[in-house]
């Protein structure tokens, strides 16, 4: 599982890194976007400046064309020579001017035209009542320059409205050449003009990125490409920071943020030239701030094109995915699935009793640990079963044949061992301690072990050893050395008939001797003798003394080995013969 853990750690690390990148990447992109938008605004501002200058050039040219009209020259020459301008003359010149405007081609027709004589007096105002006949407009820089022979433009603020004005001198070309007056054309700054100026920055597909334009006179809105109530204070503050006489550099100023209702915009401002500058005339180019996209916003902004094979490395991503998946699955199979399958198969064999223990050496890592734990538990269960059988015998007395609760004292073979495996990691399992009741009446010598304790009636219980010491296993008769006399079997001495049912008899802790007869041993002897007789077995030679000595020796031996308090002997019939079983009793 180590490699799997490393794999998942690496995967988690990559996922965390990817998450960080996904969350962080939109911010630099946002900054870049804002920077680009601000740059765009500066460029747009400069372009609008250029477009306004280009428009001024067209308007001046238009005024020059207007001023060269012969009827205008004649009318203004005549008016200049008059000391007083009467209504009739004014009307005649006004009609003349309006006719010329109507005859103009193109869409950039002026909103008004002032026809001014060489004295600076307005002879007529065509198309509007922005001036009255007789008004002296000399003194205005534009008019003074035109009276001096210059063509030029200006920006005026009249009655809260902004006008782009252009003037051209009217020259009487017939000798003597002389100035006859001035033609002044005014074009109102309108929403349509603003829209026309920014139409090159509009993209219907990305309307949110459209740049807009607005004209202002101080705190008053004049016109704009959109009806947006921009924050005048922010605009005024920005205009207040502008200085110097080079208005064209205003567009290079820092963009700033401003609001209009709930919408946030980025804007730049540029001062407007001309007389209107004294009215704090300026324009603002602004754009709606791109929304802070963040991770989710960036995802939302993804379109089909971004996910096309042309722009997205699907093959690379797919390959990486398959690679990572295969790596994960492979490591899982290698470190989890395969060992688990092997352990499961081993467990099935164990369940089918095809093997006694799990093969610890066949399983590595945690699975090997599981196998070891299972084996340890199997060992423990074996020991517990043996102990339980012993206890059961003590509680219930000798069990019927085949029962686990008693031990056959007459069994010729080795004491049945537990089904515990005989091998364990590191070497063979310790030999199972033979039950303490494994003795035979034929044994001339006591079995190895501690010497028999002196028998006493109330022997204190001896604590059972934590791990039974392996006494020499009971050898089957065939395995006994030939010099060793065969164990004295009870059958050799007792020829009694077997009884149908075992008779439990509790042994007393008295020592048999030549003198007084132990009532318990005597009782057992009598029962055994009776059973032998009932089984038609010979009883000659089966004296009480010999019988009692055997019982005492085996009782002491059992007490020494098991620490039991006393030993109970049970007489029963086995295979048609009398048999005797000894059962250690731990509790009273």
């Amino acid at each position, binding site marked *: 599982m180590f490699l799997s853990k490393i794999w998942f750690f690496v995967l988690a690390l990559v996922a965390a890194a990817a998450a960080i990148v996904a969350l962080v990447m939109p911010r630099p992109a946002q900054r870049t976007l804002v920077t680009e938008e601000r740059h765009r605004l500066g460029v747009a501002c400069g372009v609008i*400046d250029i477009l*306004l*200058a280009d*428009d*001024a*050039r067209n308007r*001046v040219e238009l005024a*020059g064309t207007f001023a*060269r009209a012969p009827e205008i020259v004649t009318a203004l020459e005549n008016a200049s020579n008059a000391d007083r301008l009467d209504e009739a003359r004014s009307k005649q010149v006004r009609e003349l001017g309006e006719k010329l405007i109507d005859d103009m081609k193109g869409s950039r027709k002026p909103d008004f035209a002032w026809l001014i004589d060489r004295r*600076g*007096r*307005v002879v007529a105002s065509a198309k509007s009542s922005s001036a*009255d006949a*007789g*008004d*002296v*407009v*000399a*003194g*205005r*820089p*534009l*008019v003074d*320059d035109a*009276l*001096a*022979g*210059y*063509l*030029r*433009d*200006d*920006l005026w603020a009249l009655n809260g409205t902004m006008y782009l004005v*252009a003037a*051209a*001198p009217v*020259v009487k*070309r017939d000798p003597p*050449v*002389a*100035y006859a007056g001035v033609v002044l054309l005014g074009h109102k700054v309108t929403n349509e003009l603003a829209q026309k100026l920014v139409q090159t920055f509009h993209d219907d597909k990305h309307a949110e990125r459209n740049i807009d334009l607005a004209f202002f006179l101080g705190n008053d809105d004049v016109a704009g490409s959109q009806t947006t109530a921009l924050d005048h204070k922010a605009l005024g503050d920005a205009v207040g920071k502008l200085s110097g006489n080079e208005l064209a550099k205003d567009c290079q100023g820092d963009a700033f943020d401003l609001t209009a209702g709930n919408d946030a915009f980025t804007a730049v401002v540029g001062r407007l*030239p*001309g*007389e209107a*500058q*004294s*009215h704090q005339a300026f324009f603002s180019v602004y754009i709606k701030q791109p929304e802070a996209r963040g991770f989710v916003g960036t995802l939302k902004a993804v379109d089909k094109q971004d996910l096309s094979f042309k722009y997205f490395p699907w093959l690379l991503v797919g390959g990486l995915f398959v690679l990572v998946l295969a790596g994960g699955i492979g490591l899982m199979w290698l470190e989890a699935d395969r060992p688990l399958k092997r352990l499961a198969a081993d467990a099935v064999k164990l369940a089918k009793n095809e093997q006694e223990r799990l093969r610890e050496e066949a399983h590595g890592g945690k699975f090997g640990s599981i196998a070891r734990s299972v084996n340890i538990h199997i060992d423990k269960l074996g020991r517990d079963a043996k102990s339980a059988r012993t206890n059961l015998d003590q509680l219930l007395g000798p069990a019927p044949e085949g029962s686990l609760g008693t031990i056959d004292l007459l069994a010729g073979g080795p004491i049945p061992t537990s089904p515990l495996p005989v091998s364990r990691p590191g070497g063979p399992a310790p030999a199972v301690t033979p039950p303490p009741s494994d003795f035979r009446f034929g044994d001339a010598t006591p079995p190895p072990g501690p010497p028999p304790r002196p028998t006493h009636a109330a022997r204190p219980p001896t604590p059972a050893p934590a791990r039974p010491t392996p006494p020499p296993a009971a050898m089957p008769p065939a395995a006994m050395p030939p010099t060793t006399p065969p164990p004295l079997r009870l059958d050799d001495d007792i020829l009694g008939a077997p009884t149908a049912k075992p008779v439990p008899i509790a042994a007393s802790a008295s020592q048999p001797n030549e003198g007084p007869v132990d009532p318990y041993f005597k009782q057992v002897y009598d029962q055994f003798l009776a059973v032998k007789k009932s089984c038609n077995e010979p009883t000659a030679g089966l004296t009480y003394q010999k019988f009692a000595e055997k019982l005492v020796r085996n009782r002491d031996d059992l007490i020494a080995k098991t620490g039991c308090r006393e030993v109970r002997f049970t007489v029963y019939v086995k295979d048609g013969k009398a048999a005797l079983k000894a059962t250690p009793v731990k509790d009273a």
Partner: protein
Amino acid sequence: MVRALAVVLVLHAVAAHAGTLIGKLELPAPPERPPPATHGFLDRTENPLAPLKPYSVTAQLVVELDGDEKPAAPPQVIWRLVGDSFDRPVIAVPAGAEVVIRDDSKTARTLVAKEDGKLIPPGPINPNGTKPFRSGDSGKVYTIGDSDAPHLKGTLIVVNTLYVAYPDELGRFEIADVPPGSYKLRIWYGGKLLDRPDDDVTIATKGKTDFNPKVPAGMPVRPERK
């Protein structure tokens, strides 16, 4: 045609013992036209049909004849406002004289003296209306204007004499009814004294005294006293 531009501000009975100063300023070559007060989106360009009019300096000139006798009762001076300018861009008035600005245009104006906000009573001058005020001490120069019409500007010079004249386009001037005596002749240009020596002029008891002062080239002005 010669048009008398000299304006005698005080008309009192000195005809019996008064002379007239006439003259013609020796004007230098016209200076370069000053840069435009305002710019459009484009620089101004000359028209291709006729030469530019030379820049006229005479509208900015005032001839002052300063004698020992000081005006006891300076007369009222009327300064007309015509459209987008004053009828004279520069006027000189005796110290303590009452100046009346009359609006002959069709636009109301609110005039303020740049150097002294209290010189002109507050409030607009309606079309055909007037706004009188006292000129103040001699030597003062006021720039009168309307903040709503920055192109509208007039210069008011307060002098210590009744005898001033405004040359015509050719530089000719005339000051009538001048008591005989010695005077200093000074020339103002755009509200500032030209940097030239004062001329000593002696007015005869009767008849006309002809004097042609010279205007220095480049129209240099005296540095302002601090």
